[in-house]
């Protein structure tokens, strides 16, 4: 569990967070949601330890060696193939490579067919799928994913989320998203950031119940207002 205590942070004289407080949940996915520009990526940077807060603390601040962090874009070497990239992940992981049935299934069913294609010739979704897959094979304590389903079709989005779900049982997984509906069937702890603070911290069903029609988007809009 990661505790964010009274965290304040400013970027270029603009206050991003003021006394932000929340706790992540163990054994399930943690999803940060909030409007554009609210500082979701900044929050991941703070949790990863590459940005220091102005005030407050993140406890525990996990060593960078135990973190894997997928940034929002898909910056990668265009000249290498998917298989080369996966091999590189294996070299980085050494003997501690993670492998579970979900990972094997995703490789065989989804990745294998385009694994020999170079990154520059892949679609944005295929690149993201390979990176997320590769990162999940690394054995770390904390996994941070910034919009891992952005640009993916609904089937691949579900695939990526099920992949994250498969490692979240015994690892801390935190990701951001704008698509709330994709969280519906997941065991997920939602951390809703708005107006420089955490305005909601709980499950999908708890958030839905904030709206009279039990719709997650209505609940989201209601809290924002």
């Amino acid at each position: 569990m990661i505790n964010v205590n009274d965290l304040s942070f400013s970027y270029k004289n603009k206050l991003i967070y003021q006394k932000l407080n929340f706790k992540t949940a163990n054994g399930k996915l943690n999803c940060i949601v909030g409007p554009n520009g609210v500082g979701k990526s900044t929050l991941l940077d703070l949790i990863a330890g590459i940005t220091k807060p102005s005030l407050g603390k993140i406890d525990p601040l996990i060593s960078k060696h135990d973190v894997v962090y997928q940034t929002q874009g898909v910056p990668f070497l265009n000249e290498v193939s998917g298989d080369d990239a996966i091999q590189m992940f294996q070299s980085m992981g050494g003997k501690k490579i993670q492998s579970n049935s979900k990972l094997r299934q995703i490789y065989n069913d989804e990745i294998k067919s385009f694994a020999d294609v170079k990154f520059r010739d892949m679609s944005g979704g295929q690149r993201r799928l390979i990176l997320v897959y590769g990162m999940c094979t690394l054995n770390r304590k904390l996994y941070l994913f910034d919009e891992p389903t952005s640009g993916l079709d609904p089937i691949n989005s579900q695939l990526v989320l099920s992949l994250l779900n498969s490692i979240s049982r015994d690892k801390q997984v935190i990701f951001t998203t704008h698509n709330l509906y994709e969280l519906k069937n997941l065991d997920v702890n939602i951390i809703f950031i708005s107006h420089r603070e955490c305005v909601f911290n709980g499950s999908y069903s708890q958030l839905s119940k904030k709206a009279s029609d039990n719709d997650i988007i209505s609940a989201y809009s209601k809290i924002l207002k």
Partner: protein
Amino acid sequence: MINKMKALMKFDIAATLDNKVVFIYTIIFPIGYFYFMEWKQIFGHNSYSNYDLISMLIPFIGYVVLINVLNNVIGVTYARRESGFLKMYSFIVQSKLMIILSPLILYYLITLFETICFSIIVMLSLHLIDLETILLTFLIVSIIYLPTYGILNIVLMMRFNHQLMSIVSGMTLLIALFAYTFTPTNRIFQWLLLIDPIQLLGNVCTILTSKVNLTMIVPALVVIIIDCLIGLSVSKMMPIKSASVRN
């Protein structure tokens, strides 16, 4: 750690081989310029001492070293940082230094290959083959490569838009070549000019080809150590996040 370096270098080799034109261009331009400048010598039947030959080669070797360090090591690191690749990759690799070291080592080998090829082509054009000159080229590049990287690494601490990188590297190259044409009589200015990697290269060449002279060795050695320390500190201090774009 060795496995990680191997994997990283494999990636950088793939990126280099994918862009072979740049690889050839680095020595095509100096060869063309050499033929343009020295055509009288090429078609004449002059005899050259070892020192004459290596003196003729210095600005060209300096150019190849500078171009490779600027465009393929520092430029690549800069582009990787600005695109967000360095940030993500340093978590995967668990080391920022290894990501920086990989192109640095690879381009040391490529620079050696290119400068030795260039020296051989010049020697063949001048109708002589001298193994000592090849050895000198190897030694000079090996001595000068890291300090050149070190001093030019300062670019990575500057904040500018990534579109300006090619202008910054072009200007650096021009200033370095221009500074090489200066031969101040004042000793302090001579030492200060050693900041210019091509001046330093010329100095190292003189040290290697003439009698040991402490007044030349000590300043060159001091500059080499300072340049390397600058390179190491910048590599350690350099942020992994883009300086110009939020990513």
